């Protein structure tokens, strides 16, 4: 099955390179060689026990090496009616950055650069060279390697020292194609010392074909910088959404990663947060709503490399029908990382007998002065609470919904943009009521 991709690369690597940029090409052949020798992992691989990559890569997908423009105008497709929320809005269609309309966003704060990764590599080579591939290099993961071999473009964001973004940045990832499509997009995000930025990523799929999106993001968060990263996934049951986010934190930086999945096919989030300076704060949370045959696998790693850092992790799943969830929470505390606090909690509600969830906390602690805890619970809706509510006249479906919202509330409350939190709350409620369709376009559009 890997063979088709190996042949594809051998036949087209010139074309891939011609339509990308020198800096992105630099590690391409090496990445390919690595992929050729390792291939895709089977479910025997420790990290991929609950997500089987082989069947999803075995279809005959189109890949758009020539960077042909797909007929889509996101500005028309993603009209939105929530005028009270504003953001700088950008689109990546499949794996190509869509040139923004100047008028649409107004001007960015002084020194901030947001553009396609290919464009950034050409216009700001020293900046991209300094960061590109630095976090992926030590990794030994098939999805990253595959991405590095095939990715040609993606999203680039640079927020210079001490610049505080006045509005959130919204990145809408749109999958759009008339044939089955595999897209590898590559993102680079640099938040310099003392800077502040919020990124909201919305993943969507427009057409009724099979999609594989294999996205890799490298995120560099400088000293005292604050970075918030929200992701809303509302795709469809033919989308395999594979997302790797690697975050490097310097001293006293603060990051929040909040992932919400409402509709999807198969999702895999590989999140790795590495604290490479003292006094870092990292929050990592997620709310996953699954039904039908949805599969959602969050594989998280938090590395406490330096003393006095705090991390807090909370993932919640509500799964119905035959949907499947998996959560792996790895926490490493290095020998010198004294005074570490690391908390992890995974809570799940199964609404049907056939829904399943696997949870694996994995803590490796080499320091002796730390506070670490982990917990996982899986259960059904509280029958006693249901009955109590019914005796107050609340119907069974309404009572179930109230309990499910309550369950989701603390993840939603961990959204630090109030208007976004309200919108997200409404969407989660709609999803739990079964009223949020797939293909709804950008349900979160902030314009």
């Amino acid at each position, binding site marked *: 099955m890997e063979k088709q991709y190996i042949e594809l690369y051998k036949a087209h690597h010139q074309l891939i390179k011609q339509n990308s940029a020198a800096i992105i090409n630099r590690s391409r052949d090496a990445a390919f060689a690595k992929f050729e020798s390792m291939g895709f992992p089977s479910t025997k691989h420790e990290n991929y026990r609950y997500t089987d990559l082989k069947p999803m890569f075995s279809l005959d997908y189109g890949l758009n090496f020539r960077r042909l423009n797909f007929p889509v105008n996101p500005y028309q497709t993603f009209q939105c009616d929530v005028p009270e929320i504003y953001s700088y809005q950008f689109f990546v269609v499949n794996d190509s950055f869509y040139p923004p309309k100047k008028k649409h966003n107004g001007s960015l704060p002084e020194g901030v650069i947001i553009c396609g990764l290919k464009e950034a590599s050409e216009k700001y080579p020293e900046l991209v060279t300094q960061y590109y591939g630095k976090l992926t290099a030590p990794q030994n993961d098939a999805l990253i390697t595959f991405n590095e071999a095939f990715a040609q473009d993606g999203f680039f964001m640079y927020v210079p020292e001490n610049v505080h973004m006045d509005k959130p940045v919204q990145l809408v990832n749109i999958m759009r194609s008339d044939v089955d499509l595999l897209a590898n997009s590559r993102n680079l995000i640099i938040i310099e010392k003392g800077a502040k930025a919020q990124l909201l990523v919305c993943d969507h799929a427009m057409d009724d074909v099979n999609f594989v999106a294999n996205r890799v993001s490298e995120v560099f968060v400088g000293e005292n910088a604050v970075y918030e990263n929200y992701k809303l996934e509302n795709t469809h049951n033919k989308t395999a959404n594979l997302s790797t986010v690697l975050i490097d934190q310097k001293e006293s930086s603060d990051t929040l990663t909040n992932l919400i999945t409402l509709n999807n096919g198969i999702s895999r989030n590989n999140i790795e947060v590495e604290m490479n300076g003292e006094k870092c704060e990292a929050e990592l949370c997620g709310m996953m709503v699954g039904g039908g045959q949805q599969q959602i696998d969050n594989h998280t790693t938090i590395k406490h490399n330096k003393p006095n850092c705090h991390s807090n992790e909370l993932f919640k799943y509500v799964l119905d029908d035959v949907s499947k969830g998996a959560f792996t929470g790895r926490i490493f505390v290095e020998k010198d990382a004294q005074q570490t606090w690391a908390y992890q909690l995974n809570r799940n509600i199964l609404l049907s007998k056939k829904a399943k969830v696997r949870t694996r906390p994995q803590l490796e602690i080499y320091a002796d002065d730390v506070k670490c805890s982990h917990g996982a619970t899986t259960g059904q809706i509280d029958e006693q609470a249901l009955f109590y*509510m019914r005796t107050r*006249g609340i*119907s069974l479906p309404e009572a179930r919904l109230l309990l499910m919202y*309550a369950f989701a509330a603390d993840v939603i409350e961990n959204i630090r943009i109030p208007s976004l939190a309200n919108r997200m709350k409404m969407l989660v409620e709609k999803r739990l009521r079964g009223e949020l369709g797939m293909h709804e376009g950008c349900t979160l559009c902030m314009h």
Partner: protein
Amino acid sequence: MLEIKNLHVSIDGKEILKGLSLTVKPGETHAIMGPNGSGKSTLASTIVGNPAFEVTSGSITFEGKNLLEKDPEERANEGIFLSFQYPVEIPGVSMVNFMRTAINEQRKYRKLPPMSASDFLRFMREKKALVDMDNKLTNRSVNEGFSGGEKKKNEIFQMAMLEPKLAILDETDSGLDIDALRIVANGVNKLKTPEKSTILITHYQRLLEYIVPDYVHVLHDGKIVKSGTKELALELETKGYDWLK
């Protein structure tokens, strides 16, 4: 109003109520007393439709309607309220949201439009005053972290909000100190109207000093073995239950 005839109820195959009959007319207050395990709480749970209890024979009608055919929420919306012996904590569901949902579900059942947010808040403020309910409690999740006394007060607050025709108070006095008992009992008395009926389930005569019943029934081994007026409660207090067996 409420008519129970020859009621037999089992839980997990074990028969708890063994042919209980009781009639409650509008405006009446009935006290049901009896030792532990006599079936008092089973009776309360069965009237409100707890699915854990199985009615094997007999009937319960409320204003002429067959209650046993109705879901717990329908019974509530018909006007039956149970103050729980052990109120349930519901983390994450705010009291305000809980009560607003309940009120609007009741209104929907009665084919009325939902109450506006401002009307609701005004209504809630009124009812809070009635039972001396603290603001900080209504801002929290339902019963979460409430003391025993606060939970009982919250039950009476909910009763005030929902304005039932028949209120069943299951051991509302248990776990209350004398001041809390007085507040709770005052709340119940203030809510009383000539049409509304109450069933008090209690171990002790103490509560009956504050809420005076029209009738007292003694439940033993799943049946009412003696009925009388409030003097019967005093007699029980001195003699205990043994003489009735």
